[in-house]
């Protein structure tokens, strides 16, 4: 290593340090923006260092410069454009697309590295090949797997699990082909064998994600994120670049942690999700609860009275809220209640939404201050003190059946909504959630059902609460809640 490359490596280490500090600053919403800036600065430094390295090498041809610069500029424009116009509800798709291109780029780096070595040396063998093969396999699987995941989230591909006959056998066959060809590469340098690895891995990525249902997407995205990180780290091994190794390892760790959190929040093992479970119809044992007979429905006025006279309201939002684009409507209702001195907080289940933390972003966009967004462990002890729990578009994560043995969701951590003094559930129909079982919460005598689209229901309730507030004599508003205590 001469002094020039040493200096460049030092710059890469600086960039890697920026990434770590940037992620560290994300441990609080107050410092997270600075974290992103630090990380961006690290990236800029790394890219500049790379360009300096290219110039110093002096072997980049005119065409070479042209293709990489035009490629990078077009890519930047595409990335920027999609980042600017993406709807927050569509974040999971976008993150999936970034996973896809990241994994794809990592695979291409390894493919090129292999081609180059193969043509310049007598043969590429040994340990280099292990990391190359891993990079190519993981990167390719991530590329197509993420594209399929994004397609499912966007609705281009059905969100239902697609189970092909013999699909599992085909998966095994593809895995054997990919790994077998990779093993062959260890002893014999062969470009065609590498291409077989690529193709088998690409096909495997498609087959891996197709059978997974929409509700499992938080886990899938996290897993693919971990894959991308690992692929990038492997690319770092291939080209001996520490910045890639460190960055890839960080992302791998992040994706791994989130995968575990998501799988735990659904009380399902990763293997169970990958192989397919919910919605495929063979694992759910429906528990006979005659829910329909006992449910009580409520109108806007009555709901408004419950809410308007509460002192503590906990909102429980689920994916149905986002699907109905009702996050702004719920924020408005909460604001009206808070203006009356009512304490409002949001109970966020880890898998509310289509990716980890998705619901928080949707509510932040609707201008809900983040201190009101409470995690499951934090909010569960507060339910017994809540006068009203307002459940909007959340189903399985509120089902007390999870506390018993023998149901499809047994053992899944849930929000203790049934502990609240009264419960209002906004829902379009009595249809069951992803687990395909009835929600016993709806039959609870404390529960009232409000059958409507979330956005419409919230608008009606907000109007009703406003009317109620207007009707009240002013003296009514001066209670212990509106005095300085609050």
């Amino acid at each position, binding site marked *: 290593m001469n002094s020039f490359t040493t200096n460049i490596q030092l710059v890469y280490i600086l960039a890697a340090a920026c*990434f770590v500090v940037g992620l560290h600053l994300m441990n609080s*919403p107050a410092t997270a923006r600075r974290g992103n800036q630090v990380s961006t600065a690290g990236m800029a430094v790394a890219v500049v260092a790379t360009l300096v390295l290219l110039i110093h090498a002096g072997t980049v041809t005119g065409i070479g410069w042209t293709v990489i610069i035009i490629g990078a*500029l077009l890519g930047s424009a595409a990335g920027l454009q999609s980042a600017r116009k993406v709807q927050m509800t569509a974040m999971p798709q976008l993150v999936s697309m970034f996973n896809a291109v990241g994994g794809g780029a990592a695979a291409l780096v390894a493919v090129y590295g292999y081609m180059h070595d193969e043509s310049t040396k007598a043969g590429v063998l040994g340990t280099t090949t292990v990391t190359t093969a891993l990079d190519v396999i993981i990167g390719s699987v991530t590329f197509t797997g993420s594209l399929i995941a994004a397609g499912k989230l966007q609705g281009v591909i059905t969100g239902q699990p697609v189970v092909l006959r013999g699909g599992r056998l085909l998966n095994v066959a593809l895995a054997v082909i990919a790994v077998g060809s990779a093993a062959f590469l260890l002893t014999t340098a062969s470009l065609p064998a590498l291409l077989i690895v690529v193709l088998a891995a690409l096909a495997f990525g498609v087959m891996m994600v197709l059978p997974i249902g929409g509700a499992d997407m938080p886990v899938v995205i996290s897993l693919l994120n971990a894959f991308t990180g690992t692929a990038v780290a492997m690319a770092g091994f291939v080209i001996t670049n520490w910045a890639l190794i460190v960055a890839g390892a960080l992302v791998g760790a992040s994706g791994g942690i989130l995968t575990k959190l998501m799988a735990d929040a659904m009380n399902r093992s990763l293997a169970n999700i990958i192989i397919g479970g919910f919605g495929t119809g063979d694992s759910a044992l429906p528990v006979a609860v005659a829910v329909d007979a006992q449910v009580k429905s409520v109108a806007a006025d009555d709901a408004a009275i419950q809410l308007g006279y509460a002192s503590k309201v906990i909102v429980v939002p689920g994916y149905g809220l986002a699907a109905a684009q009702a996050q702004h409507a719920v924020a408005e209702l909460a604001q009206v209640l808070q203006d009356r001195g009512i304490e409002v907080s949001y109970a966020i289940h880890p898998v509310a939404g289509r990716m980890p933390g998705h619901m928080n972003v949707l509510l932040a966009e609707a201008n809900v201050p983040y201190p009101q967004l409470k995690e499951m462990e934090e909010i569960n002890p507060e339910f017994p003190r809540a006068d009203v729990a307002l459940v909007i578009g959340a189903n399985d994560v509120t089902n007390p059946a999870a506390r018993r043995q023998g149901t499809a969701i047994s053992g899944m951590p849930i929000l203790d909504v049934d502990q609240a003094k009264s419960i209002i559930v906004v829902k379009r129909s009595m249809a069951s959630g992803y687990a395909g079982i009835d929600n016993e919460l709806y039959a609870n005598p404390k529960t009232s059902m409000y059958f409507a689209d979330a956005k419409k229901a919230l608008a009606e309730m907000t109007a009703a609460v406003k009317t109620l507030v207007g009707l009240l004599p002013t003296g009514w508003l001066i209670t212990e809640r509106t005095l300085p205590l609050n």
Partner: protein
Amino acid sequence: MSTALVTDLTIFVLALLVGIEVIGKVPATLHTPLMSAANSIHGIVLAGALLIGVTAHSVVGYVLAFVAAFFAAANVVGGYAVTGRMLKMFRRKATPAAPKETPGP
């Protein structure tokens, strides 16, 4: 195993441990921006894509360099932009319009 590979592996394992330590402290509220930030960080593969240019002197090499640079640049720029956009929405107080100081409780 060569010394270089052992060094690389050491760096990889240590970075993995640092990652687990640092990311374990990120609250669930920020998990989406975290994932998106992690996404932009793996865009460092752009360095690898650009470095293809050093030895690429054939059509296949140019094509690979172009596609890899396109992918990686989209990843980096898009990732950082969208993370910044999301983080901007996280506010402590409900009133975003008035940037006046809000005294703590």
